[in-house]
Structure formats: C-alpha cells, structure tokens
C-alpha cells in the first residue's frame, strides 16, 4: 500500500534513494504543488521548508533540494539506519544495530527533523521492504503520520505486485496459462525477462491484447482488439483512496475501435453490453450514495462531469481494497509493508500506528547493504518526459529535453566526472555495459552530481514496436532490472563498463551548463533574505552626468517609452516555485503548433521550443590568482555535486525590444498592450531579430516542417494534423517564431469579456505554460489591472526579490523573475 503525502505541511523534507517525488513518482504533480506552497516567500511569508535529498543520480527532486548528498544504492539501507539512529538519539529512543556510515548532511537532517516534529517527513524510494519499514519507523518518531503522510488516502496510482507478476511469468513458461488478456500492459518490452517471456507466450492458448497498435506484446498475440483512445473513452478512476474522477470522451472514435470494457462485457455475455450504462449504474450504486446534498443522480452525474472529480466530504473506505485485488496463492506476506491501516481509516489515516521489529529489520539491512562497496552500481531511472516507455512514440515527449541532462531522443549512460576521467571517456564515447547477463553499447554522458562508483541509465527506451517516432530510439534498460526478495529492483549492483568502438552524439538542447559568474540568475539564502528582502540582487547602475541612474531612467528618446494604457500583459516567474519539470514546455508546444524537428536537427541546435527551462550547475570557486583565461575555463566546469537552478526562459516581450528595431519588413513590432508581436506572414527570414535577441528565444523554420517526409511527425499526415491547434497558424519555411504570450488566448479572453460588456478578470486569460504549471511558478496577467495576482506580485517584489534578466542592457522586459532563495542550514 502506497501512502500519499502532504508536503504543504512539511517544514522539513528528507528524501532517500530514488525518491523523485517532484519528478517521476506517481502523484508528482500534486506533490509539486504541495511542496511549492512551502517554498514560496512573500512579505507575509518569510519561512520556507528545508529539503535534504540523499540520492544516486541527479533527479529533479535532488536538484530542488537545499542539501543534496550523493549516495550509492548499496549504502541506501545504512543511510536510513543511520538517520534512524540519529533521530532516535534526539528523541530519546533506542538505537538499532547497523553498520555505521558517514554521510554528509545526515546529522543536520536528523536535527532538523526532530526540531520540526509533526511537521516533517522522510521519504524513501526503495523497493526493499525493510528499508521502507525503517522509514516508516522514522516517520513515526517524528510524528509524520496523519500530518505529512496520509495512510488513509492511499495512492492507487501504482498497484502492481511484483511477486505475483513473477509467478505469472513462471506459469507462462511452464505452460500453465490457458488465456491471457493484456490491458495497458506491454511486458514483452518492459519486463526484464520480456524477451524470453515473449518466446514463451506461444504456450498460452488464447492471447488477446487491447493495445491500439502492434506493440511488442500485441504483435505476439492472436487477437488484438484495440481499445478506444482515452480521449474517446468513458471511464472512471480513483487515484487516491476516496477521491473519484470520471473520464469522458472529447471526440467520437476515429477508428473502428471498441472500448475494452465493452469487449469484456460482450465476451462475458452481458445482457447490456453498453459500457456507459454500466459505468453510470456503478456510480449510481457505489459513489452517488456518498454524495450528500447532491440532489438527483442526474444532477450529481452532470455536476461530476462538469467538475471532473468528486471528493466526498468524509472519505469512507475505498470501494476496492487493494489487498484483496490479487488473489494469488503465491503472495508473499513479506511483500507487503507491515504497516497496516485500521479497519476503517478516517480521511487522514491518523489512526495509524507503527508496529514492527526494527531490530530485526536493522539486522536484515546490515546483511544487505555495505558502507564501502567497490563495485560499479547501475541505477535504472525514469526520465520525467518519457516515463516507462509506453509513450515512446510521442514525438513531443521524445524531443522534450530531460530537465537534468537537457538531452532528448536518446538514453545514455550517466557517469560521474571522476569515472569518465579515469576511463578517458568524453561525452558521446560508446561504452559496453554488462550486467545481469545482459549487455548494451551506449554513449556516455558526464553527469554532475552522479554518485561516484555509480552509473545511471534511463528505462523507457530501446523500443522495437512503438511506432515510427519511438522505434529504435536508445537502448532497452529493463533487462538490467531483476527481482530481489520479491520486489523488482531497478539497481544492478555490479556492472562492468568497458570502452567500445565509436561514438554516438547525444542530442542536447543545452551544451553549456554553468552560469559563468553572470548575474542572470540571482540567488540568496533564507537567512540573508529574512534580513534583507533584496538579498542576492544585482541592481545595475549606470554612471551618468547626473549621477548614478538605473538603466531604465536613461533614454535618448524624449518620451522614454510608449505607455500602454489599456492592458499590459506581463508575467512573474518565481524561481523558488519552479521545480524544472518542464510541463510548461510541452504545453506550449502543443498549444502553439511548435514543430518537432527530430534528433539530427536537435544536434544541429535547431529545436523549435519557444519556452525552455535552462538548467545551470554551480561551478567550484575559482582561485584568486588564476589568470583571466584560466578563470573562465574553470568557470565552465560544473562541480562534482553541484547546486542546480532552473530558469524558464521565453520571449521577454521587451518594451525596448532589440529584435523589433532591426527587422527590415516590420514583421515584429510592439502591440499597444505590451506584447512583442510576430507577424508570420510578413517575415522574410533575415534572422537579424534572432541574432539581436540577447535571450536567444527566437526560432527560425529552417525547413518546411509540415508535409515533409524528412520530418515525418504529426504534421505529415491527416491524423497527426488533428493534434494542431486551429487557433494558431502553422508557420511556413523561412519564417521566425517565438513565444506570443498565447496571444490567441488573450484575444479570445478579451472577446469573451467584451461580449459580456466587461473587462477580463484575472485568471480568465492564461497562457498555456502558466496553466500547466503545477506549482504556480508562472503567473500571467494584466499588469495594468491592480486586481490581478501578477500586478500585485510585481508591485510587491520591486526592489525586493523581483529582478529582470539582463536589466543593464535596458530592453525593459515584461517578465519579472523572483530571486531564488534556498534554505541552507
């Protein structure tokens, strides 16, 4: 049973292992939102959470942590044990007997956890039950249960049972299975022994798949009965215990598909095969009774469809009990965590108590983990874009650059700098990775923050039958996983890495990773901020004949700029809230018909993303006596365990835009509402505007990206073109494009308000990026309207955390960034 968390209640968060709750964990969107509530600062909120992360490969969560410590997977259990002991000592509990281990920041973490008792949480990403038990023990000691962890509203997002699956695989191999139906499952690809599983599948008499394509598993099935696409389907979901949601279709089925549920009803010989009727009936019987004061069922149903979710006021026990889902004689009791909810948990599960034998657990951990292993350990992880690989055929996701490595269209072996230097490897060199009886040749990427003696490889790649965009992209990492004590372990504890012949260029959208001591990103620590809200700011000042002036006070034009009297669209981007997840990037691509260009063009540095999340690593301090050339060279090197900052960068809609001045044909001008306009049909493609943009946010259509065999993505066929937003032009070859602040949405919002004879209200007009940001890091609106959040934030943070990037060149952006404040101890 997987609990859910309430990070908004946590003043101290400690994550150990693959605890990527901001990135790839199920529920990460909700967790990001909660976490951000604790990271935001304002004049009324001068406190923020402190976050420690102990992990192997640099993840989004680790990048956001205030203190990050690299650890090896072989040390993980000992780290948790050591933390337990420190916390126990501070809370007057008994220590457990486990081998000692020195871990930076662990003592600070323990102190902070105890000081924040009742408002702290420890999370573990481990698949080892014992480690999870020990984590639960720590959480118990710091009073997390019911406050920051919710055992009542358990997560239903991952409900698989590794032992049961292993048993099934064995039964298939033994020919004991007569029939199998695959629904949203592709084990021939993503099961570690998927290949042999596939071979053994022949032994199963009846094989049916509901997949929408001949994927790796479906192509081995006798019958493929494609389910509707989720946008064509009726359905429901209970993502967290007690929280219900409906799935409703948005278009009629495009192809001759049938809802899987209807197929099942048909084969079951039901009298009414209609799934919609079945669904409604289910809700009438099971969910509607929980709705107090909802009126008739029809009322309730319509309201739920409108809202999309139904959260009963008091959550009763889930209708489906996860424990009873799998009725399998081979179920191993040890596979389930020993923390049991009481019979009818209240909404917050506060009635949960911890009872397990920590000493037995410590002993087991002592056997399994080592403080100083010499082996090279391979960690398998999910990239936040591609995930487990079932969306591998989505070109937008393939082209989405990984927030950490900025690479796309590939997976690669992430190695620490020390190992690369020792093995004389540079980025792109091919290496052979051997382990668990499997080997691949894969390019190397030097990853700052990767724990020494470990390497990392992303799963979700190496597909053979995903579709033309996803096939043969990267290498399959799943076979490195294996069953360990009944759970699937995504760590290969001992792999051999050897140089292979040749190179393979990794497509990265960013190849320089440090800030070069430029005040583009401004940072401070919380204690400095609390003393002085303008901590960390760089306020450029220009010496003039009338004394020092801010750049915005200097102008050769008498009018000193045009006034925007009606609307003035602007943005505030809070660097404390931005976790770097990149959902905004994908949203922008989809909203604005941004073309996909493919791996080779990304290597040629021509990806078309209007919005990007720049990720900067810190560099080690440069020695004073170093010469200028040496200093700059050193500044280009990221630290071995760097600080990470994410900066969303998009068109700043400068009031004194350098791009507008230089366009010969007036294809880019300024609107009366503060937008830098891009007139596609006027642009003749001189590229002067892109050269003159100091933020480098402009993109040229180098080729014709639609109806072009060389770019065979969604703009080359009729079905793919249904993805396009009809409110936005598809640009021709030779034309410039860039962020327009979703002008189509602005116009629509203004028009709707006008039809109702009123001004647009805050929140009615929102850009795609702001809309999709889970943490609310991007706030968009009318700076001229004092009622809007953006105007209020802008007003409040001037002279404090508010800064503009490259303020000294006086282009006067409409976007204010808020200084990143970390909470380091």
């Amino acid at each position, binding site marked *: 049973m997987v609990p859910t968390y309430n990070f908004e209640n946590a003043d101290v968060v400690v994550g150990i292992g693959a605890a990527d709750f901001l990135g790839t964990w199920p529920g990460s969107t909700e967790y990001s939102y909660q976490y951000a509530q604790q990271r935001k600062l304002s004049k009324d909120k001068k406190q923020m959470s402190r976050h420690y992360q102990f992990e192997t490969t640099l993840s989004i969560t680790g990048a956001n942590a205030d203190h990050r410590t690299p650890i090896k997977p072989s040390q993980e259990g000992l780290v948790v044990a050591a933390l337990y002991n420190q916390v126990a000592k501070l809370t007057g509990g008994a220590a457990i007997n486990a081998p000692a281990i020195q871990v930076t920041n662990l003592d600070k973490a323990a102190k902070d956890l105890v000081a924040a008792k009742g408002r702290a949480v420890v999370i573990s990403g481990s698949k080892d039950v014992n480690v999870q038990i020990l984590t639960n023990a720590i959480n118990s000691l710091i009073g997390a249960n019911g406050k920051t962890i919710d055992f009542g509203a358990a997560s239903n997002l991952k409900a698989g049972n590794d032992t049961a699956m292993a048993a099934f695989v064995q039964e298939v191999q033994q020919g004991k299975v007569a029939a199998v139906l695959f629904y949203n499952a592709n084990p021939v690809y993503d099961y570690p022994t998927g290949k042999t599983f596939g071979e053994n599948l022949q032994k199963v008499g009846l094989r049916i798949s509901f997949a929408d394509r001949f994927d790796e598993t479906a192509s081995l099935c006798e019958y493929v009965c494609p389910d509707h696409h989720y946008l064509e389907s009726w359905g429901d979901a209970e993502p967290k215990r007690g929280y219900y949601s409906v799935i409703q279709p948005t278009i009629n089925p495009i192809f001759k598909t049938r809802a899987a549920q209807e197929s099942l009803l048909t084969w079951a010989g039901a009298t009414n095969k209609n799934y919609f009727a079945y669904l409604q009936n289910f809700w009438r019987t099971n969910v509607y009774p929980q709705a107090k004061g909802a009126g008739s069922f029809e009322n309730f149903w319509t309201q739920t469809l409108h809202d999309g979710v139904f959260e009963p006021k008091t959550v009763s026990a889930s209708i489906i009990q996860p424990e009873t889902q799998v009725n399998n004689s081979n179920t191993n009791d040890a596979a389930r965590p020993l923390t049991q909810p009481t019979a009818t948990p209240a909404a917050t599960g506060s009635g949960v108590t911890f009872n397990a034998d920590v000493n037995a657990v410590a002993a087991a951990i002592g056997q399994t983990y080592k403080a100083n292993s010499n082996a090279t350990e391979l960690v398998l992880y999910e990239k936040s874009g591609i995930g487990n690989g079932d969306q591998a055929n989505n070109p937008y996701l393939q082209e989405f650059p990984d927030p950490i490595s900025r690479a796309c269209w590939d997976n690669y072996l992430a190695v620490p700098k020390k190992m690369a230097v020792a093995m004389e490897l540079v980025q792109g060199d091919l290496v052979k990775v051997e382990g668990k009886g499997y080997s691949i040749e894969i390019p190397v990427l030097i990853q700052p923050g990767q724990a020494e003696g470990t390497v990392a490889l992303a799963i979700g790649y190496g597909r053979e039958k995903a579709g033309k965009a996803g096939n043969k992209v990267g290498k399959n990492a799943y076979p490195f996983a294996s069953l360990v004590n009944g759970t699937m372990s995504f760590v290969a504890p001992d792999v051999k890495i050897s140089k292979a012949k040749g190179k393979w260029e990794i497509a990265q959208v960013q190849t*320089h990773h440090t800030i070069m001591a430029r005040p583009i990103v401004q940072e401070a620590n919380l204690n400095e901020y609390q003393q002085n809200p303008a901590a960390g700011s760089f306020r450029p000042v220009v010496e003039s004949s009338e004394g020092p002036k801010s750049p915005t006070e200097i102008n050769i034009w008498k009018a000193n700029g045009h006034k925007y009297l009606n609307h003035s669209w602007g943005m505030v981007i809070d660097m404390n809230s931005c976790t770097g997840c990149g959902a905004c990037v994908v949203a922008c691509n989809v909203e604005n018909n941004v073309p996909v260009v493919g791996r080779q063009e990304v290597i040629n540095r021509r*990806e078309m993303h209007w919005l990007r999340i720049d990720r900067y690593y810190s560099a080690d301090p440069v020695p004073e006596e170093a010469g200028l050339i040496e200093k700059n060279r050193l500044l280009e090197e990221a630290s071995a365990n760097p600080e990470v900052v994410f900066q969303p960068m998009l068109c700043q809609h400068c009031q004194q835009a350098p791009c507008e001045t230089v366009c010969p044909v007036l294809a880019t001008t300024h609107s009366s509402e503060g937008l830098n306009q891009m007139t596609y049909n006027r642009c003749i493609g001189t590229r002067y505007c892109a050269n003159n943009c100091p933020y*480098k946010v402009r993109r040229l259509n180098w080729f014709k990206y639609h109806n072009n065999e060389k770019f065979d993505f969604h703009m080359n066929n009729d079905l793919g073109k249904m993805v396009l937003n009809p409110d936005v032009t598809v640009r021709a070859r030779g034309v410039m494009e860039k962020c327009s602040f979703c002008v189509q949405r602005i116009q629509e919002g203004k028009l709707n308000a006008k039809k109702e004879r009123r001004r647009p209200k805050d929140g009615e007009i929102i850009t795609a990026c702001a809309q999709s940001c889970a943490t609310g890091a991007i706030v968009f609106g009318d700076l001229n309207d004092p009622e809007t959040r953006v105007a209020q934030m802008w007003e409040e943070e001037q002279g404090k955390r508010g800064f503009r990037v490259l303020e000294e060149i006086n282009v006067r952006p409409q976007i204010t960034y808020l200084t990143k404040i970390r909470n380091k101890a």
Partner: protein
Amino acid sequence: MSHVVSPVREPLVLGGKTYADVTEDICRQVEAKPTKLWNIAFLISLVLLGIGMYSAYRTWWYGIGEWGLNKTVGWAWDITNFVWWVGIGHAGTLISAILLLFRQKWRTAINRAAEAMTIFAVLCAGTFILLHVGRVWLAYWCLPLPNTYGSLWVNFNSPLVWDVFAISTYLTVSLVFWYIGLIPDLATIRDRAKTKTARIAYGILSFGWDGAAKTWQRYEAVSLILAGLSTPLVLSVHTIVSMDFATSVIPGWHTTIFPPYFVAGAIFSGFAMVLTLMLITREVFDLKEYITIQHMDVMNKIIIITGSIVGVAYITEFFIAWYSGVQYEQYAFLNRMSGPYWWAYWSMMTCNVISPQLLWIKKIRQSVVATFILSIVVNIGMWFERFVIIVTSLHRDYLPSSWAMFYPTLVDIGDYILTFGLFFTLFFLFAKFLPVVNMAEIKAILKTSSDIQLEAHKPTVKAASHSEAQTRPAYNKDAE
C-alpha cells in the same frame, strides 16, 4: 596639355608610348579572338558558377536549413561573405573617386578594372542578400513600395533597410560612374571595329560619343561631381554595413569603432583584391608598361596604411573591452582569443596585422610574387575578420545556456563558390569584351610621362617621332 610633373617622379607609363600605342595595346585584347588561356579561365569560372548554382538551388528550394546555421548562430558564412564582397568593392570606388579628388594620376592604369571589380563584387554581395533570406521570393518587401497590405511600409529604423538603400545606391552610382567612363573608350573601339557585329554592338554601347570638347567639359564636371558624391558614398556604405553589427546589443558587435574600422578594412581588402587581379591581368594582357611596378608600390603603401589602421582598431577593441569592465564584453574578446574559434582569430591577426608589415621592406613591396601572395593572404585574413566578428560574437553571447558551435555545410561552401564563379565569369567577360584600362585617361597623362622618357632617352627617341617638334607648348597653362 602637359601636366607639370616633377622630373624626379618615375614615369607612369613606360616604354615611350604614343597615343596610338595606347589605343593599340588596350584594344588589341578586345578585338582579338579569345586566347586559349582565356578560354580555360572562363571555363573554370563557369564550372564554379555551375557548382554554385546547384548550391543556390538547394538553398532556395529546401531552405536555410541546408546551411550550418542554428538558433544561436543565425548568420555565419552568408553575412561574412556579403561583407567581404562589399568591402572588396570599395577599393574600386576609392580608386576612381577619392584618388581622383586627390589628383593621384597613377590611378588611371587601374581604375577601370577596379571599378569593374567593384560592380562585380557588389553583385556578388547582392547574391548573398538574396540567398540568405528565408523567403527569397518576398525579398522585395524590403522596399517601401505601395501595396495592398495597408500599405505596409518598411522599418526605417533597421540597418538592413539602410543597407538596401546604401547597396542599391552604391551599385547604381558605381555602375553609372563606370559606364560613363567607358563611353569614350567604347567609342574608340567602335571606330576601329572591323566586323559589322562589333560596329553595331559597340555603336549602341558608346551612345554616339564623338569626343566633342563641350561634351568633354560636361563629362569632366560629371566625373568630378560623381567622384565628390562617391567618396562620402563609399564611406557611408561600409559604415552602414558595419551598423548591421554596431547597432545591435550583442557583446562583440555593440561597439562604436566599427564604422571607421570597417571602412579601413574595406579599403585594405579591396586594394589587395585589385592587386591580385591586376598582377594577373598585366601579365596575361602584356600591360606591364601601363600597370607598372610603381603602381604596385603605391598600392602596397596604401595597404600598409589601412592594414595598420585595422591593426590599431583590433588593439583598441581589446583595450576598451578590458577598460570598460563589462564582463560580457571582456568575455567576448577572451573567447575570441582563446575559445573554440581561436584559430580563426589568430589567422586574422597574422594575415591582417603581421603580414602587411612586411611591405615596409622596399624589396618586398616591389616584388610581384611577394605582393601577389600577400594580397591573397590579406583577403584571407579579412574573411576571417568578418567570420570572427560574426560567429564568435553570436555563438557565445549573454546566456550560457544558448552557447553553441557553428560548422559550415557543403552548401555554405557551395554558395561561396557561386560568388567566385559569378565574379570571375563577369570579370573575364569584362576583360575580353571591354577595355581593361581607361585609354582616354592614360592618354591624358601620357604626355608628361613621355616627356620624362623623352628627356631620359633624348638621343634615341628624338629622331623617331615627329610629334616631339611640338613637345614644348607655346604657353604652359598651369596643371589642374
């Protein structure tokens, strides 16, 4: 009338030439059938042109993506080549116009070919304007023509629009200046023409020129005014071209030194190209007595001067970058010197600053082989200068997240070859069908030179020509 020239000066035309000799020497090339050498050279030009046309087709049909440009480096070979060609072109105007205003008679041997070089170079630059635009078929939108979009005019704040006006004006004025200068010589060829085709063709081209004194008077006035207009024009054109960079905000581009720096560089590279062409022409067309070592010597002196100005400009840039204390500016120059394109930067420095200094040595200055090699080295250096300015400034500007490298593709190179093909095709056509030296102007300075020659070779020459009976004029009106 004889121009009063100090006897100390070396004669500008050697070999004791008469007017008839001049006519014969220059027209001979035009009237003769193409030589084998010309045929081969012309064929090579056509081949280069052919290769280039294929590259141009790829660029126009498939898109600018055929080049090596990317989201960070939006200009590279295209604008480097454009500025390189425009810069080369400025020497022709300088020779025609500014040297005319400064009464430098030695310009007469080379000004026709130099002006032709200007026109062809500007045409080559214009080719790049057409090639580099994303939607070439709409390039005319840069002109403020009435239209059905509003009318939607152009952005007069943009240096590219200034370029449109500047380059168009420059091409037109240079063409006009060159052509007006050609008319009297075309008349000469017309009057010597043996075939009907030649008579008709050169007849049409010479506009019915008859050499009347009144017409010459007006002609001189026109030349002087055109020279007076062309001088600020040539300065303004390359200033405007430099403003493509100077008015931007990018470190390495945003600098007020560019106008004089570019103009000096243009003259520098233009003179080098004139030398390259003239050293070949004088050899092939046997014009060593008209384009003398003296001419080469003087042009080399101009090259030292302008090369040194360019060198001083480079040093000034470095100094100001350091003195300004602006980290972006400082990094731009550190990166040029020691970053991934350091080899381009040091090529530029060696070719432009160090190698021309060799010309202080008289022996080198007056050696045809050394000058020829150095002239090519200078142009290579000047190509690198524009490449360094454009690419190193763009590839690493303000935000390190955008830093990227630029690598040229075969199409980049092919489009450059196109311009060489175009230039040499036009130049060889010019050399074949038009007189490469301005006969009328040479004849105008001949007397003086002959005088000196006659003085120097008194015994032998006196008996030969009867014209020397009138050598000493009845009265000696002052020279211009």
